[in-house]
């Protein structure tokens, strides 16, 4: 094997790989597909200096984007001016770039457009692959994937068009979705597909068009022909979901929604709901032989929408079989010139052999494979699904199906791989407990992973008494398996999980009460805001399953919502910081306030041990000097302390209470009896 490996590397290095039939390569990591997810994973593997290869059937990366979206405008935001220099923060508003350590390897290098042209994306991907020297093999069309069990464990064997086999210890499927989703109904053969329609609006001049679907591709299509078509109707089973209401970027984006306008202003366009299985698209039978030939052909070109219950059989129907015959005001009683199917895409399950079977997930109409919370195939250990195909985990809720989301889940998967196969624990940062507050605020203020992958990725903070370990961006649905996946143990001090969440209430999204400002009402926040969960141990699988309705995590021991913020800057001393500090104090059961050196001096001399802050700072000779003589500010601190401890003045530096109570006086002269 070693020889093979060496040979393989040699071949790759010399760049003239010519696989002969039945040539057998063994590779540690195979990444299937050189789209954004595949390249993203390739980057992490390359950075970790793993033995990997990215296999791509086309001649360049991101080939999906050479064709789609058909109207060539990406709707992923490319915000290049944010007023900030923080790279991490800026990724919150850059939906196209992939993650890397290179500060300049960003999408903005290829386009400055807010909604960039689709051609820019493969260009960006090619640049990404080249500059990071990712090992991609183009022109390898894997047609069959099977699992092989051997003494050394399970591996996956991929067979390409030349019958070359690639044996992979770990298979990372990043093939995306490119099989158009279809629905079987009578007359579905009369329908054109989004993948092949003309994108020239003039081809739709004065035509009545019915579009099946109400997603972004359907609306994008409708929008492009609005100025030419006579009528555009859109049909699907469910009503339009607006992304700005659902916070789900896969729902209809405002950039595509012009048809809503023309519908509501009664400009001949419209939306209707029906299950596709119940409709029939049909041509009309010739009525009788009296009609003259010319008319006949014209009518034959028209497509009618009727319902299965009126139709006997076939996609050529009589007048009696039309819905309008039964209901004289049937909405779509007039015929269409074209019917276009825009129902999205599905995962290509067909290449997976029974041994490497990926079952379809229950959601997403079975279009996506089912995966575990850490994106591994349910019954296919060592096979991970990345990219859009991994979206079944957060379908219709978060951003896992989109570049700005799955770039982070790819990183999470890579960390799982490093721990599982190489014993490298998830990266963590060890912090003094007195530094945790500021660190959480830092993450809350800039972290892009939990921000984009809200409710899916969360920071896990392992409390360990005087210090803690901070683990970033863990897939929180996998929390029960945290220790084995991350390699970090949870101590008896418990753990915190920091997640970004939207409110779950249906509200008037532009109405007056859409946002809360009072921090005590933070749990009613509607916009994205940080939420912290405190557990004294890892939740179990069962607790995870039975979590409260619409919650990302089970009921914790303590919960803290940070009030939503208009500027998404959660650093207000009163509204954000102090409530968070008190929550942390509750979780670690320690006073986490900071004290000036003179207070620490006093507390160190009057107590067995001073508060944690004094222990971690002042006693380490890093006390905080009071600058000049500051007037006594923290009245409250003094009052509370004095009340609770009923002892001598605690925190009021200016006037100790015993001076007031006792009749003693400070004798300024010395009474020496020497």
């Amino acid at each position: 094997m070693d020889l093979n490996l060496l040979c393989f590397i040699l071949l790759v290095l010399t760049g003239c790989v010519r696989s002969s039939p039945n040539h057998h390569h063994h590779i540690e990591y195979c990444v299937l597909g050189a789209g954004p997810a595949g390249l993203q994973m390739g980057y992490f593997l390359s950075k970790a200096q793993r033995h990997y290869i990215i296999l791509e059937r086309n001649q360049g990366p991101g080939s999906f984007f050479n064709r789609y979206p058909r109207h060539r405008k990406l709707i992923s935001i490319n915000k290049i001016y944010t007023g900030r220099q923080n790279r991490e923060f800026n990724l919150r508003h850059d939906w196209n770039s992939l993650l890397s350590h290179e500060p300049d390897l960003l999408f903005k290098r290829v386009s400055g457009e807010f909604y960039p042209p689709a051609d820019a994306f493969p260009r960006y991907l090619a640049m990404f692959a080249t500059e990071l020297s990712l090992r991609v093999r183009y022109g390898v069309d894997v047609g069959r994937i099977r699992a092989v069990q051997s003494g050394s464990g399970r591996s996956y064997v991929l067979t390409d068009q030349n019958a070359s086999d690639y044996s992979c210890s770990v298979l990372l499927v990043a093939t995306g979705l490119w099989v158009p989703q279809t629905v079987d109904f009578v007359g579905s053969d009369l329908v054109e597909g989004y993948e092949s329609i003309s994108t020239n609006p003039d081809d739709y001049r004065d035509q009545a068009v019915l579009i099946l679907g109400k997603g972004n591709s359907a609306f994008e299509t409708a929008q492009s022909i609005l100025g030419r078509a006579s009528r555009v109707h859109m049909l699907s089973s469910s009503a339009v979901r607006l992304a700005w209401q659902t916070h789900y970027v896969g729902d209809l984006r405002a950039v595509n929604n012009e048809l809503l306008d023309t519908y509501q202003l009664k400009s001949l366009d419209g939306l209707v709901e029906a299950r596709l299985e119940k409709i029939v698209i049909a041509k009309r039978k010739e009525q009788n032989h009296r009609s003259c030939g010319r008319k006949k052909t014209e009518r034959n070109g028209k497509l009618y929408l009727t319902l299965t219950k009126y139709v006997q059989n076939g996609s050529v129907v009589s007048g009696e079989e039309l819905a309008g015959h039964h209901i004289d005001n049937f909405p779509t009683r007039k015929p269409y010139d074209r019917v276009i199917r825009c129902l999205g895409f599905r995962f290509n399950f067909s290449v997976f052999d029974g041994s490497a079977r990926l079952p379809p997930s229950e959601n997403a109409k079975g279009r996506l494979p089912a995966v575990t919370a850490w994106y591994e195939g349910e019954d296919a250990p060592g096979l991970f699904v990345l990219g859009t195909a991994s979206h079944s985990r957060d379908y219709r809720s978060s951003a896992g199906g989109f570049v700005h989301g799955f770039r982070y889940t790819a990183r999470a998967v890579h960390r799982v791989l490093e721990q599982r196969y190489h014993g490298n624990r998830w990266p963590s940062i060890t912090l003094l407990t007195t530094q945790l507050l500021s660190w959480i605020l830092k993450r809350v203020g800039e972290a892009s992973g939990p921000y984009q992958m809200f409710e899916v990725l969360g920071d896990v903070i392992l409390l360990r008494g005087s210090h803690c370990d901070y683990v970033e961006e863990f897939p929180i649905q996998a929390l029960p398996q945290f220790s084995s996946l991350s390699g970090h143990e949870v101590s008896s001090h418990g753990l915190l999980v920091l997640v970004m969440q939207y409110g779950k209430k249906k509200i008037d999204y532009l109405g007056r009460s859409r946002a809360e400002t009072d921090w005590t009402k933070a749990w009613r926040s509607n916009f994205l805001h940080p939420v912290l969960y405190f557990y004294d141990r890892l939740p179990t699988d069962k607790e995870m399953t039975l979590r409260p309705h619409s919650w990302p995590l089970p009921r914790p021991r303590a919960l803290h919502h940070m009030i939503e913020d208009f500027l998404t800057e959660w650093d207000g001393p009163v509204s954000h910081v102090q409530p968070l500090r008190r929550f942390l104090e509750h979780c670690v059961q320690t006073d986490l306030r900071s004290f000036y050196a003179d207070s620490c001096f006093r507390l160190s001399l009057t107590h067995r041990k001073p508060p944690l802050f004094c222990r971690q700072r002042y006693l380490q000779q890093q006390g905080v000097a009071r600058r000049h003589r500051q007037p006594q500010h923290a009245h409250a601190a003094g009052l509370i302390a004095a009340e609770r401890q009923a002892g001598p003045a605690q925190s009021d530096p200016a006037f100790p209470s015993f001076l007031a109570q006792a009749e003693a006086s400070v004798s300024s002269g010395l009474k020496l009896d020497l």
Partner: protein
Amino acid sequence: MRCAENLLSIMWMCIAAFLLGTRLGGCAETANTSELIEFAAADFYEKLHSGKMMFIYFEYKVSPTISLFLVELEKSAEALQDYGILVGKVNCNREVVHTYCTDQRLMHSVFLFRGGKEFLGLDLDTVFDVNSIVSEVLFAILREEVKYVHTDTDLMAMEKAARGKKDIVLGYVHSLGTQEHRSIMETAYVYGSKYQFILITGGPVLKQLGVNESSHSSGVWFLHCRVHSGFTTPMTSERCPVTPMRKPLSTLSLHSFLQLIEAPLVSEVYDDPSTVQPPQFPYQHTPQVFLFSRPVTEHLDLDTATALAWRLRGLAQLLLVHRQSPAVKTPDEYNVAYRLPEKSLDVKYLTLHNMDEVLELFTNEDKAEDKEEGGDEGLEDEEDNAHSGELDDEVAASVYENRGNLLDSDLFTQIRSDNFHTAVARSGLTVVLFYLKWDAVSMAFFSSFIDVAQSLADSEVDDIQMGSVDCGEWTDLCAAQSGAALPVLFQPITAFPTVLVFFPQEPVLHYRGMLGSEALHRFIMLCRFAAPVLLSRQEEVMSFLQDESSQAAGYRPDRVLGLFKAQTDIGVSVFTEAAKSLRGEVMTGLLTDGLAEKWAADHTADLPVVLVFPSWRKQTHPSSLPVSSSAEELLTHINDARLHPMPELTVENLPSFLSLGKSLLLLFVGEEEDEIGHRQNQALVEEMKQVVELGGVRMERYLACWIHLGRTPAGMSVLGSYLGSLPPLPALVHTHSLSGDEVYQYPPSSPIVAPSVLQWLQRIEEGTETPAGMLVEDTWLPEVEFYDFLKIIDMQEPGSAKQRTPEGEEDDNDEEVDEDNVNVEDETWEKAAAVPSYSSAPDTKHNTHSEL
């Protein structure tokens, strides 16, 4: 009371402001931000002769006690202004006001002038804060109006005199000069013409009132001596009927109480209790009791109500509801109703058989409430603090208070990811502060950092560059991932603030000293010296040991000299490594060859040797240390040698001495006023050294040290905390013993001499001394309870935060949209389509959008 009416309105404004959320104190105190008025002698005389009331301190010398007093005096100025009293000081150092400035004995007093002459002198011991100043001054002014009563007989006489004329307000304060005392005096000033105010001192009078003196709580009683027409029972007794005030004594509660006493005894209403308005300002917290009246028994009912109202006076308002009114809906079975507005606005209905039950209801309720109230009110305060804008973190609070001040960072370079390397390379020494804007400690230190930059700029030090990195913005730089080709020179920053010092071609130095301008400045100045300084000539060594540049800055650094036979000596590298980590803290020098031989011989040491010259020791007597095999070991030795054996503890150096883990033998000395005092203090310190020497081995587990309360005022509260009060100085205390938390005080009456101190320590060890106090054992649990969102959610949306039960286990996140059966009915197509978004049911089970 000339201005009583005016004042009354002012007070109510205060109270109104209080109710709007401002502190009462805020109204009286914080409005005035001006300095204490200083009167010139001429001014003083002019005001004096105009007959104005003045409260003046004649300032001669300012000790810590005096400066504390002056702060309080300033605060009281605004409060006393409301009573027409001018507060100020006269600076005797500028101008002499005769006798007041010349008689030393008067220095410890403050004077009240009235009608052109001295009215009263108050000893500073009795006026130590705003409350004591205001109460004592008003007490003096109201000397005629407010009577002091010591015995019950006196009180009886007063009652007799007041009968039919005036009601009496009787106050008891457990100690004078407290906030309670002040509240009574302020109220007396306002209501003095209306009521007779009497102050009692406890003892027999309290007993007469049925109060257990040991409870020690202040209180107020209202004595109804003026005959009230409402009285059904004639006043047969000698004594006036008494209504105790049940709320804790404060100006606000006392006003409300007196207002409530004045309120009509019984109000008659024709509405149902549930629709009767809750009590209005200022009674909004007063419970309401409703009795019901029928036309037949109207008079009788009113009598009953009045009788009950008397018993409930000060406790609740009584309302008589006329049942004949059609608006009254209360069922006949109920004869009493009440409302507790503090708890809820709901009216509760009861059927009671006699009036005592009503009373019981309230007195018991009251007791229960009292109990709760103690807690409640505390909680409320706490709530206020806990959940309103008050910051309870002293550093955060001071940073927040100064949030209006822009931090002027022109003095130093803003370091970014992209200019880091060029910026650091630009200068011989670059001091960089890594900070987070939301980290209070960072921002508190930021100001000190600016101060240092300013003072470096002022002293024209130009080889040092100061810079700062905002880690909220340059997150990659702070994480030590520059992304640039050049390597990052430091570890990721995970603690804020962090100060790093960069030298060209040398490893980065981590600043580990106090976060204050003085310490940082000292560190930077010392960093300018090489570590170690290579010395090759006698003059260089001399100047190394006596460098003036650092002395000029006001401090003397410790110096360490490494003496080696040759540069090639293996010890040199160990020493150099130790020297590098001491950079900024001490000055290190390296001496080799012949000169080293000479120096070693001078100090009767053999090469190689390390000489430590602590700043506190005479230069001729350095400690000599062997060169250890490792730098860490050498460092430990050097640091031990730097520690003073009998140190003066300061805020800055305490940690290094506490870390020795020894028992403390702590001498507190006061501020010297003159040369004699200074010598005495020195003698004391010398005597303590004697203790150490005389004690020998026995003293090894003790650290003998002293605190100068003038230089380290924080020591005052330490001493106060140990002993419960400030003892006369000097005071010798034994604390932080290895075995227990007891704090012992050396008998204040015995002279501090070494042998008796040792005997005293012996007695402590033998357990025959009684401790004077205890160290506080504190687990440092959170000061304030957190805001429990789970509890709030459980209350406001019951069940929504509960774990689901296994039956309801269906995964509702994974809704299946297209399977649902919506709008297939042809007729409703368009209708449904016209209701976007909510009409469809993406989830077959819940018929709602789960993501909405």
